[in-house]
């Protein structure tokens, strides 16, 4: 469904960020990208979403170059939420969430009615209490939930979310990850970036590490190798703890 092949990317004046990233996301799968600041997670997501052209390599959506899709058709298949959404201050939450219906204004109409999609997104991201508030009065986490709800209403089979949990409190992080797992069970594919490797692993997401050199690395199965990879990439000492059968990693505090 999503296929990235040997992606390389260099910003005109910023040097090379990605050096050969290959990755596939299948229906029913939630893939999480972790990595240090500036390792290229956002760049990778933007290329995968067709918002940025790679310097070389291919980014495909459903077997066709993601940049070659007609914009509206692509928006029906792929929803993207940036790390810092820009919401016009005087618009109420309800209307901002309903903007997710924009691509479905063009034929063919969305398979499910807008009212149902709005209702589900509102429930999943717990927006009832702020539904009529203007965006200018929202906190960072609330704004992030509004942008995520908009992507839910877009109802695309592929979701790309740039650090969707970065401003969320623990309760809403859990709610979001549960909602994403539910979407995956319905055959959706999700690609997201995160800094919380443990929550990702506990939520049964497939975790990939993007290292500073711009290369994607899968987490090895063996515990010791996992620890070495993480220490190497993040430059901190970790200790392992087993939580309900999943090895979780915590940085050592002196």
């Amino acid at each position, binding site marked *: 469904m999503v296929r990235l092949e040997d992606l390389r990317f260099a910003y005109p004046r910023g040097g090379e960020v990605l050096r050969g990233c290959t990755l596939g996301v299948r229906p029913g799968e939630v893939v999480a990208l972790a990595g240090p600041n500036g390792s290229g997670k956002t760049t990778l997501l933007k290329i995968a*979403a067709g918002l940025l052209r790679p310097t070389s390599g291919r980014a495909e959506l459903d077997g066709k170059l993601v940049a070659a899709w007609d914009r509206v058709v692509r928006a029906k298949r792929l929803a993207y939420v940036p790390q810092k959404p820009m919401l016009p201050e005087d618009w109420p939450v309800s209307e901002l969430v309903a903007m997710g219906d924009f691509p479905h204004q063009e034929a063919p109409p969305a398979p499910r009615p807008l009212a149902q999609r709005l209702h589900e997104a509102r429930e999943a991201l717990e927006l009832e209490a702020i539904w009529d508030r203007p965006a200018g009065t929202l906190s960072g986490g609330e704004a992030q939930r509004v942008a995520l709800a908009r992507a839910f209403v877009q109802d695309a089979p592929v979701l790309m979310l740039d650090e969707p949990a970065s401003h969320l409190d623990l309760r809403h992080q859990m709610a979001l990850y549960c909602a994403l797992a539910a979407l995956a069970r319905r055959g959706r594919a999700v690609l997201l970036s995160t800094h919380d490797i443990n929550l990702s692993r506990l939520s049964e997401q497939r975790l990939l590490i993007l290292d500073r050199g711009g290369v994607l690395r899968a987490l090895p199965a063996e515990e010791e190798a996992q620890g070495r990879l993480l220490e190497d990439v993040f430059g901190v000492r970790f200790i392992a703890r087993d939580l309900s059968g999943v090895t979780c990693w915590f940085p050592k505090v002196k």
Partner: protein
Amino acid sequence: MTAREGRVLILSAFAALAALGAALFLNLPRGLVSESGIFWGVRVPEALTAALVGGSLGLAGLLFQLVLRNGLADPYVLGVAGGSTFGAVLATLALGGAATAFGLPMTALAAFAGGLVTLFGLLRISSGKVTALLLGGVVANTAFAAGARVLTAWLSPSQLAWVTAFLVGFIPTPPLWAPLLLAPPALYTLARFAARGRGLDLLLLSDDEASSLGLAVGRMRTEALVLATLLSASAVALCGMIGFVGLVVPHVARLAAGRRHRVLVPASFLLGAAFLLAAHALGKVLSGTWFLPVGVYTSLVGAPVFLVLLVRTQRRAW
């Protein structure tokens, strides 16, 4: 459309019609043999001009403010009006008068070229910094106004009075077909963007968000800028630099009708028409006392209204 949006549209239409009535009939000299001659030869073309120019300026202001994400943007502030004026004055002086079937379209074309070159030149120089763009626009306007006067003194000193009126903005008494030339671009832009209001709404988001929702952001923005420039240029070609309509009208429309562009586009057009028609009618009423170009009235009313809006938004920000 919500009930409030519907009410605002109906009220705006009524305001435009009432102002049209006032501009047509107020102070019409009664009992003269030439009464119907004055009505058809003066009042009707003037009122049509005021309606279309006001609507064009209101709509152009809305589009500029949206695309540049700045409530201070309007054809006047951006230098578009100045560039257009310079082009128009140049064409008029070269052709020896604007109000001919050949001269007016040529003047409009020169105004359009002047406006486009100014806008895209300033966009390039300011490289995305809105403060630089607006300051550049103000400077360009002043420079173009001075340039237009120099051109006049040099080419045709006898037309200095006309150019002075042009720089303030006035409603000429054109032949009846002249306002009809304004109608196609104005009505096209109105219809085009009223139908694509939801797309305009998405321009309020970041480019990445709007694009991933399926909007061709670059194309939409360029189309809005070019059509807004065309509208202001055709307004300038006929009436010169009328200030404050493009600046104030979109703010009033947003205060009344809310935020959705499906409604703001027609509301800005109707309110712009109403505003300029009302200013024109005021000029007719006072014409026994003073004779002043309409741009004086729009500035006299528009400046305080804009100050009030500015203070209100600043207060809210604190």
